[in-house]
């Protein structure tokens, strides 16, 4: 039973730090899910998820890099170990088998690892890829969830672009003369006129909608003004008459 070299202690200390990081980032994700109402914006969730994912990778690398050392290490209490006050930790350290709950997690992880594509392509990191790659594995419920989630997200992405023009904002900023369209026809940049039109029509177009997107703060939703509706039908009976009927059963 040799004592540990300084290098070996360093490896253990590194592992401890990485596990501590992982625990912290998991804890902060759980806390933000529990405490913020409404839920944190998806961008924040995603960044937390990728932090966790990075932590996992580094833990996993650390553990496999030093597999030889870690699998041969044996823990035993030294005489100076405070066994009385730290009995719980001691018991954990002296376990020869995993906690049954942990054993379950490990088992589930192994099954998931062998049957499914690598976990990092799964929904969190890249939902659209996951949808195609993992389509067969998705259950009905997962699919339904995805479909509920996707339209709003897609729409939100789409809303970031100013549709209707011939050029994107990036293209315009970079100078439209540089854009390779592959077309012979000369495209006009009609942005300026559009803005004027919108201002003029604002009053009557207010009632018409095409979509919904979340405000950048992640708090609430806004609706956008849509092109003209195909068959607008204005109500014949004024609102006040409807309410009067609902109240008394009479229109007047």
């Amino acid at each position, binding site marked *: 039973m040799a004592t540990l070299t300084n290098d070996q202690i360093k490896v253990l200390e590194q592992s401890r730090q990485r596990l501590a990081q992982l625990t912290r980032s998991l804890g902060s994700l759980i806390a933000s899910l529990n405490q913020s109402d409404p839920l944190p914006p998806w961008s924040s969730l995603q960044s937390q998820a990728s932090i966790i994912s990075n932590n996992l990778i580094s833990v996993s690398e650390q553990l496999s890099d030093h597999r030889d050392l870690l699998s041969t290490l044996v823990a035993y209490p030294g005489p100076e170990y405070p066994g009385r006050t730290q009995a719980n930790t001691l018991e954990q350290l002296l376990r020869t088998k995993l906690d049954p709950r942990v054993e379950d997690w490990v088992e589930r992880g192994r099954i998931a690892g062998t049957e499914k594509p690598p976990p990092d392509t799964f929904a969190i990191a890249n939902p659209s890829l996951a949808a195609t790659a993992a389509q067969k594995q998705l259950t009905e419920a997962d699919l339904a969830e995805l479909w509920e989630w996707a339209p709003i997200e897609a729409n939100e992405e789409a809303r970031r672009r100013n549709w209707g023009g011939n050029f994107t904002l990036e293209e315009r900023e970079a100078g439209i003369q540089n854009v390779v369209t592959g077309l012979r026809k000369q495209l006009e940049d009609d942005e300026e006129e559009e803005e004027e039109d919108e201002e003029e029509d604002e009053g009557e177009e207010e009632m018409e909608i095409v979509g919904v997107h979340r405000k950048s703060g992640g708090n609430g939703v806004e609706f956008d003004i849509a092109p003209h509706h195909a068959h607008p039908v204005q109500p014949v009976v004024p609102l006040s008459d409807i309410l009067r009927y609902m109240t008394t*059963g009479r229109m007047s």
Partner: protein
Amino acid sequence: MHELLLFASVPTHQHAELLQQLAGLTAMQPRHCFERRLIFKAYRKPGVANARVGASQDLQSGDLQRVNKMLNGGMFYTQVVGPIQSADFADAGVTDAAANASANANPNPVNPDPDTDTKMDGMDSESSIPRSAYDFDQQSWQLEFRDIPEAGTRSAVTSRVMATAALPRGDIVPSMNAWGYSFVTEYLVEGDMFIHNDIVLNLHRVLHYPTNPGEENQPRRQMPTLQQMAPLEKSGSYVLQASMMVQDGSNQETMKTASQHLFGLREQLKSAVRLEMADRLSLDTRVK
């Protein structure tokens, strides 16, 4: 209890879109609802309203003044509201075949339940009314009292005193009559309900029943088919109602917070619909 409200008229072409937008906003699927709404009106025997102040027998004069004041107090329209299912409409999936199938599905097929038989015979004889599974005697009801909206509120939101109380099932008219209310008419409200934090959103419209002679004077015991129902607003428009309940209406702080939540919603929806407070007199429940 107080109720704070905003309303908007929603043209029929906008209905489908607004449903989707509200589903997105509230992160819930619309809950489709049908409600029978029975309108009752307080009545008082004619001729006793303006009794003269005469010699008092067992009343103190202060009491007499109080009684006279009460006699001239407000009387109100009150609604009795009962939820129904789409299956309650005649022909809503209950065809002869289905009815027979359910009869056969009786746990004791050799000796079919005599109850079921009598019921069916009874219904067959009423050939003018299509068959439905609707059971009026099991219809649940609640009394919904709404006062006239408060006048002169500075905030741009409709605010009124409300009370809701569950009533016994079945025929509620005898009790309502005894309590001082007479049945006026009934209609059906069809629409979708959403919950957005502490706000209830109803996107609904009024449907009329087909009129059969003799049915106007009491709540109907049978439901027609849904196709026979006609919208009150012929163009098919809907009403969006955003409402919020406040337990203690005298607490200015909570009332203010509640109005602000409604205004927040109005802002969020402003490019889709214009939520506004209602014309106070259009929600006047007083009997004149």
